[in-house]
């Protein structure tokens, strides 16, 4: 809290907004001005405690705030005007909702007297954002404004984090009222349960101690719970000797170099992780939600296991998969109890796990992420591997867009720490990565921030290059350019008779010239033996870089569990012949997403 002396005092609504941001520890706001937020922008102009980052489109502000939030663990804040400003914020709001990212979105609104009159730049912001926020507020009385903003931060950051919207009519911004500092007493109806039920945790320890084929399946909840949760997770793995896999969202909670690490699971996860999920006898799901990209066909999902599920959101329990031992609470708190009880009562019989580890070693020997190296053309997997090799010892943060490149990044870039990996998991928002990288760079000015991008996704929010140049954020946009919407094409090949309907981008911009046009630096690389030098050049340039990495155009992303199939029906790269691919998905599977 920056100002301890903020006793109740009179100020305008616009002043309150800025004061409330300060009192909630906000240093950066991503936004775009407009008619209905001018009074707030006027206040921002007259101070320098809260820095405003001007984007080029409100969607960019939202994703930048998400990247900021994900890499710091703090709330990301965006400020946009009414009408189109608010509607442009909808995509990042839904993105943050699905990935549980604390995002506070302040929107301007037409004056209260004009609400409902179809005024210029009016929209029903609260109605539009109701299903894509954890909660939202329309402030009609300036005397409630401060308390509402404080509550918004509280709701966004506690329990299962998520996005919130505070809609502030312009007359409320001008009106004078009494400012109240943040209160500790939250409203009575909102009290998330953080401490897990000890009896349930005991039952979990007992199940785990007797497991012969256990697996830890972790997710973004571990990262959301804070660094202590990741620390405890590592301790739990060491104590139990269990193999561990993670969802896309949870990468980095357990180090990829750890000896118990099996790689990511799910639709494009490793063979060993998916087979171990299928054959395990005890599954410990920690801060993950049995998403359809993880489970494959539900009726064939891990048929012989007892399942323990740790989640802060009771609605995640039994939503898709029946759980034998549900534990509702914050991952960090629950793991604390779990580790303590394990130490006190369970003797880790790591010998008993030997046959299980031997089986895993056999699966691992299939080397499911292997690909055919090519000496003339850059394979996309190779590009990510070289990027990893040349940046892993630096202070690196990775964001991605959505598609094949995202999966290759998840497979071949290895994360040692939490909060280093920012990707759009639940919503799958193409265009997420570039603005997210901007947000990350603002939070970590001296770090190396790389957006591993696809040529199609990156063009959805390319305009934020201009914001990066303005704010001297030296983000690196590493485009795996295959001229296609690769994942769309991969599905068309699998599901639609190889009819590549509109997945080829016939007119591609010259990314090098584009970078230069924005005032950044452009690099193009087409040969595998030139790649290392080009990546080193990218790292050394101290301004935004667009790296046009021309990769094999028709490479596809494997392994892959086709929609509607079970974990043990995973397609491996060396098995993915045209015939196998053609027969992989039956008519029923074709209806699935």
């Amino acid at each position: 809290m920056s100002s301890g002396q903020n006793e109740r005092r009179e100020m305008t609504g616009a002043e309150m907004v800025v004061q409330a941001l300060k009192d909630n520890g906000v240093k950066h706001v991503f936004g775009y001005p407009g008619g209905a937020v001018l009074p707030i922008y006027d206040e921002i102009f007259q101070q320098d405690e809260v820095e405003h980052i001007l984007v080029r489109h409100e969607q960019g502000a939202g994703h930048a705030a998400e990247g900021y939030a994900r890499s710091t663990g703090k709330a990301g804040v965006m400020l946009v005007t009414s009408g189109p400003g608010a509607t442009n914020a909808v995509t990042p709001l839904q993105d943050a909702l699905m990935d549980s990212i604390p995002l506070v979105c302040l929107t301007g609104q037409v004056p209260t007297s004009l609400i409902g009159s179809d005024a210029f730049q009016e929209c029903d912001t609260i109605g539009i954002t109701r299903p894509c926020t954890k909660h939202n507020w329309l402030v009609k009385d300036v005397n409630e404004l401060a308390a509402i903003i404080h509550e918004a931060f509280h709701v966004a950051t506690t329990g299962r984090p998520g996005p919130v919207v505070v809609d502030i009519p312009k007359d409320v911004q001008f009106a004078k009222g009494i400012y109240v500092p943040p209160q500790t007493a939250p409203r009575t109806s909102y009290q998330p349960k953080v401490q897990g039920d000890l009896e349930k945790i005991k039952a979990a320890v007992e199940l785990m101690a007797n497991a012969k084929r256990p697996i830890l399946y972790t997710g973004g909840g571990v990262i959301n719970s804070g660094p202590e949760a990741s620390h405890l997770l590592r301790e739990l793995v060491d104590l139990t000797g269990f193999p561990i896999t993670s969802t896309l969202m949870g990468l980095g909670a357990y180090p990829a170099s750890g000896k118990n690490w099996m790689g990511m699971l799910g639709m494009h996860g490793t063979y060993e992780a998916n087979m171990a999920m299928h054959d395990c006898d005890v599954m410990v799901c920690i801060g993950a939600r049995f998403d359809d990209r993880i489970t494959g066909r539900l009726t064939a999902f891990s048929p012989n296991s007892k399942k323990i599920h740790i989640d802060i959101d009771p609605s995640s329990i039994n939503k898709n998969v029946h759980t034998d031992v549900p534990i509702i609470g914050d991952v960090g708190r629950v793991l604390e109890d779990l580790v303590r009880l394990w130490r006190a009562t369970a003797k880790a019989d790591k010998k008993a796990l030997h046959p299980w580890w031997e089986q895993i070693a056999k699966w691992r020997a299939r080397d499911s992420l292997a690909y055919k190296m090519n000496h003339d053309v850059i394979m996309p997997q190779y590009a990510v591997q070289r990027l990893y090799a040349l940046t892993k010892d630096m202070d690196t943060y990775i964001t991605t867009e959505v598609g094949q490149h995202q999966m290759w990044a998840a497979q071949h870039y290895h994360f040692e720490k939490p909060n280093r990996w920012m990707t759009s998991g639940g919503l799958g928002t193409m265009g997420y990565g570039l603005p997210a990288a901007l947000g990350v760079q603002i939070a970590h000015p001296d770090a190396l921030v790389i957006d591993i991008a696809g040529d199609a996704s990156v063009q959805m929010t390319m305009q934020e290059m201009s914001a990066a140049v303005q704010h001297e954020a030296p983000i690196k946009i590493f485009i795996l350019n295959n001229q296609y919407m690769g994942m769309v094409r991969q599905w068309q090949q699998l599901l639609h008779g190889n009819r590549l309907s509109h997945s080829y981008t016939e007119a591609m911009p010259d990314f090098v010239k584009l970078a230069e046009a924005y005032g950044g630096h452009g690099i193009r690389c087409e040969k595998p033996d030139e790649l290392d030098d080009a990546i080193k050049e990218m790292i050394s340039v101290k301004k935004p870089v667009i790296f046009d990495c021309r990769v094999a155009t028709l490479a596809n992303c494997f392994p892959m569990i086709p929609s509607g199939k079970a974990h043990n029906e995973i397609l491996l790269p060396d098995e993915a012949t045209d015939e196998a691919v053609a027969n992989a998905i039956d008519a029923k599977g074709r209806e699935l997403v």
Partner: protein
Amino acid sequence: MNAQLQPTGSAYFIAKETEKPETHTLSVLVDNEPGVLARVIGLFSGRGYNIESLTVSETEHEKHLSRITIVTRGTPHVLEQIKHQLERIVPVHRVVDLTVRSHELGQDRPLERELALVKVAGTGEGRVEALRLADAFRASVIDANTEHFIFEITGKGSKIDQFIAIMKPLGLVEICRTGVAAMNRGPQGM
């Protein structure tokens, strides 16, 4: 051991529903603030749940608390999801599945009552018959002239259904129903 539960409304899981749907009555205690009802019904439409009846009114004025009674239909698994999803809404204080609660209390179902206003127009024999039947149903006349009656009837939904069906050939003009109000028997609160 691993009975998989089938979520509804998703194209991803086309497996057949094996659980049988049931009708349950939920009581939801909420802060009476703008938009709270929209949050509740938006949840039902957004996630593909059913609403068979919905009743809402402020019940504790000084605390600004409203009680929403929802009759919904789904499999036990979906009904559990509905309860948890409702509990996630920030201004929601408590959600009680009155049907489940009544089973826990050893009862068949919660107490449920509905009020209906039923307008019947006619003269002669039909009119006499309508009045006689209303009397049998313990419906009271709250407005009348020589050509019509408005009956007020309170009771279980099935009783009101029956009353309306009987009135149909006797000159039924219009019906207004409040939806279900419900609570559990016994001394305990929700």
